[in-house]
């Protein structure tokens, strides 16, 4: 009775609206992010199917497409301008809405307060605002699909002048304005989130939770938040400038003397490369904003399920910080052939190769973590292992692209497409899947189905390889990316057959996600009830109820006595020692 009373005092009772919709509870907000992210993931995947259909069957009418897409596929032929819109929206949605908001939004929100022993975020209302601003960004982005000229279509990088001059492509019309507004909102949402994550991590750690006792996940989210805070504002500035160029006649990015569609363009004195610097100043850290949360979730899951301490924890944390810091000074490797000063190019080669140092350390530490472990192969663990399996080729192929002369040949080819899909896209998605399977019992108080999870893993893992591995060879042979059809050049037309294969793989791998969706929503209501600590894990969130109550803990905050990875300690009774267990117990 007194316990109830104390909890009520801290966090009073809520109505339906404040509990599920305008909730300030970090756990509800995390779930809101997760479900919104999943919806975006499904949309992004469907967009990729349209692209794959076009690439597999170029110039062949597919009447069912007209039924779905209307004027964008008159006569069953996908329009090239819509294809460009598809690549743009697929990229934007997957990178920002799924793998930034969906991933960071879910797990930073869910895990930071729980793993550091806090009752909620430092600024719960700001946290709620962060989600609802993201929601507004989502709505704006969704609306852009239904405007007359279609959604934004200038690539997810939105290079001006293509994105700045409305008559240059239909996707540079209203769709691009909506894209910029949506991204503006999105950035505001990320900044609100990042502020919260940083403040909470620094100030709301419970007694005994020193920085060196933080689980690697919290470190990952923390570094991610700092990166976001430093780099997102730059894109916001760029987006505002681009809106001004488009709507109010300024010329930040558009030089004078241009002629589009036979008509002169009334701009003067801008520089398109400026946008590229601003974009990639966020764009490259963004890769790590996507990747670091995934990497850190994977580290946590590997250690828990290998029943082994995360190997060289401090070095790994250092590597995370190192990756974060270096990621701010490598953006130029996207611009070797952009017309940027070539001496600058040389500098970026060195910084880019330097970033492989912390990355290699991290991967090596993870491999050593599972070496001589006692692996429990849950779906979450399989996805964490799958993350390594995908990240390795992704990271290694980065070495080709980092080397400026080789990048002359490979830049903007399918090699790049394959590279970033392995290294950040599917790898981060695997990190996210791993996280969902692993923390689902805590989030929803129920277990997901193990068998379905494993089928989902294998379908996805093999599917990803079948889809993206062949693209390395398309890229080596020189096929440029963002091509509507491979039929126009001798050096690309040899791959029309291979494209059919990739498309089939994409549909099979995509269909496998239905298993996940079913498992996720079915288990949410019908799965077997979860224990407090089904994985026998050490970190704090597993020491409270599943799902944790509003306010997370009982009347007393947990107290931390040890690091997060004391698994299989020789002499200990069990193969895990939660962080809340006082040292003296171990001593006996």
């Amino acid at each position, binding site marked *: 009775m007194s316990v109830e009373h104390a909890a009520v005092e801290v966090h009073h009772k809520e109505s339906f609206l404040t509990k599920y919709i305008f909730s300030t509870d970090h756990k509800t907000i995390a779930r809101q992010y997760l479900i919104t992210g999943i919806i975006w993931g499904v949309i992004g995947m469907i967009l990729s199917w349209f692209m794959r259909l076009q690439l597999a069957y170029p110039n062949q009418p597919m009447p069912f497409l007209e039924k779905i897409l209307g004027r964008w596929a*008159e*006569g069953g*032929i996908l329009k*090239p*301008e819509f294809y460009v819109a598809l690549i743009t929206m697929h990229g934007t949605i997957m990178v920002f809405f799924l793998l930034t908001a969906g991933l960071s939004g879910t797990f930073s929100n869910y895990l930071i307060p729980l793993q550091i022993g806090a009752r909620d975020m430092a600024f719960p209302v700001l946290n709620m605002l962060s989600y609802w601003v993201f929601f507004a960004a989502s709505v704006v982005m969704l609306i852009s699909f239904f405007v007359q000229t279609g959604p934004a279509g200038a690539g997810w990088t939105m290079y001006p002048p293509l994105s700045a001059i409305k008559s240059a*492509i239909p996707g540079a019309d209203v769709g691009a304005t909506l894209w910029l507004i949506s991204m503006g909102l999105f950035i505001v949402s990320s900044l609100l989130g990042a502020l919260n994550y940083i403040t909470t991590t620094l100030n709301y750690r419970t007694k005994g939770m020193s920085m060196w006792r933080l689980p690697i996940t919290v470190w990952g989210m923390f570094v991610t938040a700092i990166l976001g805070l430093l780099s997102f504002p730059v894109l916001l500035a760029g987006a505002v400038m681009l809106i001004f160029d488009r709507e109010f006649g300024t010329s930040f990015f558009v030089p004078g003397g241009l002629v589009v*569609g*036979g008509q002169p363009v009334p701009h003067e004195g801008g520089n398109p490369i400026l946008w590229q610097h601003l974009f990639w100043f966020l764009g490259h850290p963004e890769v790590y904003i996507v990747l670091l949360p995934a990497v850190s979730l994977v580290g946590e899951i590997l250690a828990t399920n290998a029943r082994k301490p995360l190997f060289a924890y401090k070095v790994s944390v250092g590597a995370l910080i190192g990756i974060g810091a270096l990621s701010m000074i490598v953006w130029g490797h996207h611009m070797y052939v952009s017309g940027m000063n070539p001496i600058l190019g040389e500098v970026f080669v060195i910084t880019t190769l330097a970033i492989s140092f912390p990355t290699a350390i991290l991967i090596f530490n993870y491999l050593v973590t599972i070496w001589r472990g006692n692996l429990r192969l849950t779906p979450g663990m399989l996805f964490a292992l799958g993350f390594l399996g995908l990240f390795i080729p992704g990271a290694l192929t980065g070495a080709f692209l980092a080397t400026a002369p080789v990048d002359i040949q490979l830049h903007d080819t399918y090699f790049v497409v394959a590279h970033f899909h392995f290294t950040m896209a599917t790898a981060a998605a695997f990190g996210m899947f791993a996280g969902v399977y692993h923390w689902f019992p805590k989030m929803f108080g129920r277990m997901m189905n193990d068998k379905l999870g494993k089928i989902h893993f294998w379908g996805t893992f093999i599917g990803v390889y079948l889809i993206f591995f062949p693209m390395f060879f398309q890229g080596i042979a020189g096929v440029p990316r963002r091509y509507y059809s491979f039929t126009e050049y001798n050096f690309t037309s040899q791959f029309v057959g291979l494209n059919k294969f990739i498309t089939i793989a994409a549909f099979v791998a995509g269909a496998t996600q239905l298993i996940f969706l079913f498992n996720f929503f079915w288990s949410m209501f019908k799965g077997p009830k979860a224990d407090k600590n089904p994985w026998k894990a050490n970190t704090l969130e597993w020491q409270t109820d599943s799902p944790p109550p509003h306010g997370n803990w009982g009347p007393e905050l947990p107290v931390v006595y040890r690091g997060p990875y004391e698994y299989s300690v020789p002499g200990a009774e069990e193969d895990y020692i939660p962080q809340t267990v006082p040292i003296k117990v171990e001593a006996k």
Partner: protein
Amino acid sequence: MIKKSVSLLLLALVVSLSFGQNATLKGVVKFKGEAPKPRLISMKADRQCDAMHGGKPVEAEDVVVNQNGTLKWVFVYVKEGVKGKYNPPAEPVVLDQQGCWYHPHVFGIMVGQKLEVRNSDPLLHNIHAMPKKNKPFNIGQPVKGMKSYYTFTVPEVMVPFKCDVHPWMSAYAGVLDHPFFSVTGDKGEFEIKNLPPGTYTIEAWHAKLGTQVQTITVKAGETKTIEFTFERKK
């Protein structure tokens, strides 16, 4: 049944004749001076287009002087003086893309009338219209046989069309809210029928040689003949 319809038709004919005391305006557009050498378009860089013309260059239609010294591709229309409202015809105007070329080069269309843009080539064309008053559009037609439809909402003389894939392709549409327009052909002739009696400003427009204006008055049932003469600028 047949009888009935025949008599109805006759009746309609009589009615239209008795009310149709409208004037006809016709004439030719002459070209003064030496005909310029036509600009030659070689389609070398697009092997498919080039093959359709047997590897030979094609003469541009900027300034086409006919054998009889008249000028082709002049848009002659009533600029001012039209009263009343005219509904657009149901059948569309066709702009065909064939042999990496627009057919026709110049045409008139009414506000609200359908424009059918057709791709008769087995390759990508895009129709990039850059009107100032109407909404611009830019649409790709990647395969043969594709058709796209547009309607214009306000009168505009002229709306330029360009294919960005084949930058030499150009066409012009005169968009009007009445049907009183004509385009000169191989004989340099134009004819505007059914013009109600009144005073009108007639303009002749040419893509390269500019415009010329005449004011005329037509009486009921009259057939009036006028003439425009264009000269090379510079």
